[in-house]
């Protein structure tokens, strides 16, 4: 008798296989990709529901349990983020981690507790399945660390040459307590400007990988989920007005956005801005200004000046805020300029990022 197994589907070759157009066609190959790559990875992020493992239904959408006992007055926050970083893997991280951290951090900057993520993959024909598995695993690890579940997704495949391996887009849902009201429009004259740690690492890590630059002490991306640090900061009771993660455009651009939105000026102290020597050295070499380089695990906080010491103490007790510093103050300025006292002893403006010196870094 022939050993026919009527329901047999030959498993994907996750070691040697590559993405082809059928994986995005919506047929059996698409289904198989979800079952063999995404489900096993993302199942590690799914929460228990009433004591039972929760499983998605394979439907067009996911029905989610409401967060347990959210009191009246809590609000939902929704954020989304797209990622086109090249290369997909870089020192200190990869596109999967970045896609999770990007959206988690966007939610965290609103003071929200992130709950659920969705993810869309736009894959290029020819992407090694091993790379996709690595990305999915890395997303799951990042989601678990941040305490969020990846609950639904989509996959499309584009022809070879029309993508760059993989583009990822994530959306995230979270909740925020009634007394937390953070916004880029809430900066007040006199506020202290706090930075959670040294800057420029992500932008340089990606650039150095892309350009094949080697440094004595390797520069690795700072990509990290900031929701834990934010909860620590909120629990101090410090009067926080603005939180912002200085990603593309760097610290300089983020502060200009806030100054414009709140109708204030700012004065920074260059000597107070934390910077790793390796980052400073690489910037000197390449003619880059670290204040315009992307960060993926740092935040800027604007708070009432009387609360800054309390806030800094709490931040420094958290691993992601160990090198937090107060770097400046919010001032009255009809032009909404961000100025900086240079370490050299003069003063200059710090403008928005012009152009795009480092494309495709997140």
């Amino acid at each position, binding site marked *: 008798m022939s050993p026919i197994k009527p329901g047999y589907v030959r498993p994907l070759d996750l070691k040697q296989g590559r993405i082809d157009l059928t994986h995005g066609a919506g047929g059996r190959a698409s289904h198989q990709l979800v079952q063999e790559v995404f489900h096993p990875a993302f199942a590690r992020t799914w929460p228990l529901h009433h004591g039972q493992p929760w499983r998605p239904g394979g439907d067009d959408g996911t029905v989610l349990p409401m967060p347990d006992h959210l009191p009246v007055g809590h609000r939902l926050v929704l954020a989304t983020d797209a990622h086109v970083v090249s290369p997909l893997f870089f020192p200190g991280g990869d596109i999967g981690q970045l896609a999770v951290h990007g959206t988690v951090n966007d939610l965290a900057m609103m003071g929200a507790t992130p709950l659920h993520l969705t993810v869309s993959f736009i894959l290029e024909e020819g992407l090694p399945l091993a790379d996709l598995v690595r990305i999915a695993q890395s997303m799951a690890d990042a989601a678990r660390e941040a305490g969020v579940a990846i609950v639904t997704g989509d996959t499309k495949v584009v022809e070879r040459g029309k993508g760059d391996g993989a583009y990822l887009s994530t959306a995230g849902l979270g909740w925020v307590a009634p007394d937390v009201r953070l916004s880029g429009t809430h900066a007040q004259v006199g506020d202290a400007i706090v930075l959670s740690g040294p800057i420029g690492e992500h932008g340089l890590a990606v650039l150095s990988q892309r350009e094949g630059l080697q440094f004595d002490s390797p520069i690795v991306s700072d990509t990290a989920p900031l929701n834990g640090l934010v909860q620590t900061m909120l629990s101090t009771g410090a009067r926080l007005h603005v939180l912002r993660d200085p990603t593309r455009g760097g610290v300089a651009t983020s502060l200009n956005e806030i100054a414009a939105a709140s109708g204030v000026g700012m004065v920074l102290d260059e000597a107070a801005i934390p910077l790793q020597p390796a980052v400073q050295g690489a910037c000197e070499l390449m003619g880059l200004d670290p204040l315009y380089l992307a960060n993926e695990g740092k935040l800027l906080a604007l708070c009432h000046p009387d609360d800054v010491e309390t806030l800094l103490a709490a931040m420094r007790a958290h691993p992601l805020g160990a090198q937090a510093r107060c770097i400046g103050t919010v001032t009255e300025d009809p032009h909404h300029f961000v100025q900086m006292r*240079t370490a*050299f002893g*003069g003063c*200059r403006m710090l*403008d928005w990022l*012009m*152009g795009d010196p480092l494309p495709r870094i997140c």
Partner: protein
Amino acid sequence: MKYVSEFRDPTLARHLAQKLADAVQPGRTYRFMEFCGGHTHALARYGVLDLLPPQVQMIHGPGCPVCVLPIGRIDMAIELAQRPGVILASYGDTLRVPASRQLSLIRARAQGADVRIVYAVDDALALARAHPDREVVFLAIGFETTTPPTAVALQAAEREGLHNFSVLCNHVLTPAAMHAILDQPEHVPLDGLVGPAHVSTIIGTQPYEVFASRYHLPVVIAGFEPLDMMQAILMLVQQVNEGRAEVENEFTRAVTPQGNTRAQALVHEVFELRDDFAWRGLDRIPHSALRLRPAYARFDAEQRFGLQDRSVPDHPQCLCGPILRGQRQPVDCKLFGTVCTPDNPMGACMVSSEGACAAHYAYGRHRAPTATTAATTSAVPTELSPSP
């Protein structure tokens, strides 16, 4: 950071600022031109201007390779880039320089021209090797500092028999531009020159002697670090006070009297002087630029593609010309910060970070606008005068 922080030490800066304040004589001004865009950038970026006594005025010179490239040369590059089969390789800054017909290289690229950003001429050579079926043209710009690498690349192309590589040469010469500024009848009254840093590593200090002797101008060659600049300015003040006009070298850690003779020999082997060359803001200057020698003619894009050098006037309200000659400041321009911004530059001085307008826009806009330079000895042509 080692080897950098030493040249940015705030304590030393305060010390030098005090020495400068003590050195300047009350009741007189000291007008110094920093020729080089790198110095313009450093003055603004480190806030050096705040540490200078009010008697010292810094006047920005034309030493920004992107800024002095006239529209006609950019038009030539665009025309070339739009030809089928051509890949134009250029430094990033040059892509945004506005040219005729509301085009720039970056806009031509969006319309389909194959323009690639390269960080060094080596990248352009690599493109030529990778695309043997395409014509790869390197848009070579810059003063004496960037010329030797172009010469090396041309020799490599010759050696390898790279038949699809050529250079659109816009290499220009610092001393010629200095002469042009000082020979203009309405030139700014100057008390001294801050000589270029990197250019001087190649050409040495000797070519500046003529400015000290013929124009009786003190010249101090300075490094690009902020303490270098303050020290050089102090040396200039001392020369002025003592009535001396000499070439002094502050940047001794890199610049010698003879310069880099190997690089000079290399440049001499590959390039020869042009009879004249058009500069933005300075018109045509005799013997101010280089072209490829006949032995390298097949690598000369102008000859290879039969390109014509046409002169195209600047935007009538753009003050890039007088700004490059040191006669005007960026804030004197009606377009500055309104029509012309780094995001949407009208003139070349707003394009490169070494341009006077871009540096002032990015770093110095918070300063209260000072009165118009009033630095010209005779009237500026009326069409360039700011409105009352």
